[in-house]
């Protein structure tokens, strides 16, 4: 039996009322031994204007490459007080930021492992459907062989790769909704 999927609609401008109760800027709970990293950036629209009313959600594996989800049945340790989920609205300048840990590698289609990445969902007024993308890390040699990065046109791959920030453990990942450096978004 097949039921047709429910249609998506925008979160609209007042999303904060319903969604900020679950804000999670710091994914790293007490006792997590892995070194924290900071991942953040700015979201801009087709006029390069900041998007001040977006919501960013992230989902990631722990440092062992294990997702805290029943579907990941591999014999790898879970991390107590690290669920892998974060949610934050952008500020008036379109900025968002998370404190988390660097994810480990997870299996790739057809064998091998994907490069470390964070999965991103983007919701905002003006988006009738959410957008999804990935944050890769500029200091990872594994990026060269990552099957998802390789499926992206070469000229656009760097839109998926966070660069090192000024402080240790800081990564910058700006999201450009339209234009010359438009971020790659995925049909998930």
């Amino acid at each position, binding site marked *: 039996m*097949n*039921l*047709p*999927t*429910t*249609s*998506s*609609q*925008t*979160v*609209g*401008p*007042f999303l*904060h*009322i*319903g*969604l900020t109760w*679950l804000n999670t800027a710091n994914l790293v709970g007490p006792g997590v031994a892995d070194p924290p990293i900071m991942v953040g950036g700015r979201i801009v*629209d*087709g006029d390069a204007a900041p998007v001040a009313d977006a919501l960013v959600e992230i*989902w990631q*594996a722990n440092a*062992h490459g294990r*997702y805290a*989800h029943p*579907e*990941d049945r*591999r*014999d*790898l340790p879970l991390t107590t007080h690290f*669920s892998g989920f974060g949610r934050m609205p952008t500020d008036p300048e379109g900025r968002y930021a998370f404190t988390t840990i660097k994810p480990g590698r*997870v*299996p790739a*289609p057809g*064998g*091998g*492992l*994907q490069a470390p*990445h964070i*999965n991103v*969902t983007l919701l*905002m007024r*003006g*988006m*009738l*459907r959410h*957008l*999804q993308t*990935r944050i890769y890390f500029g200091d990872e040699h594994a990026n060269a062989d990552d099957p*998802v990065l390789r*499926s992206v046109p070469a000229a*656009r791959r760097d839109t998926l790769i966070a660069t090192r920030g000024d402080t240790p453990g800081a990564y910058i990942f700006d999201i450009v*909704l*339209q234009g010359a450096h*438009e971020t*790659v*978004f*995925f*049909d*998930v």
Partner: protein
Amino acid sequence: MTQPTDNTTSSAAARVAVRGYRPYDPGTQPAHLYPPYMSTVKRAPTAPLVRLPATLSEVTGPMFGFERIRANDFDLTRQHAGQPIGERIVVSGRVLDANARPVPHTLVEIWQANAAGRYPHPRDQHDAPTDPNFTGAGRTLTDGEGRYRFVTIRPGEYPWRNHPNAWRPAHIHFSLFGPAFATRLVTQMYFPGDPLLEFDPMYTSIPDAKARTRLVSAFDWDTTIPEQALGYHFDIVLRGRDETPMENDLPRP
């Protein structure tokens, strides 16, 4: 789509079958760019989306338990000292997947305007009163059969600035995660007989007319509470799993 193993560590490899999620049904989802809804014009991506294969990253997703849900979170009429102004309603239904299986224990978040069509939000400039006894947010988890239930008040229609004399039909925003990163859904529930629906660019952004009408809740005698609240029924269908798994080889650490 089983792929051959070509992995030097295959002697230590475990096999993981990843079953992806089927594509959305044609016509059910709006395009990213829909110029009648003006805010899409500068925010919709212009390049085609890149197809992602199903991997563990997409078939897993955040799980939420009862520890974050408070007792009155499902009842928006009992979150403050007094009763909110407006018509009390019960909104309930089931969360299913496209294979008609219930989605149990999944988070459902809602938010809405008050009876006067006003949100308690700094960016809402509509000249209508706020209600100190109604802040318009609720959340619950579905039960083992995918059922959810909220008690709230019927939201008011309100004007917006998309085009001259633009009005939003009465609606409740819904946010769901489902079991995976690939099943995220944010939508809006409408009310039967609303004359504003056909003029609403959010509603008309959905290409398939039947899919649009599925966002309109149904009046429901069965959930009506006598002398208390009218019932409305709204089922939500998330994507369903593919029948055939893809096999991923992975080396053990």
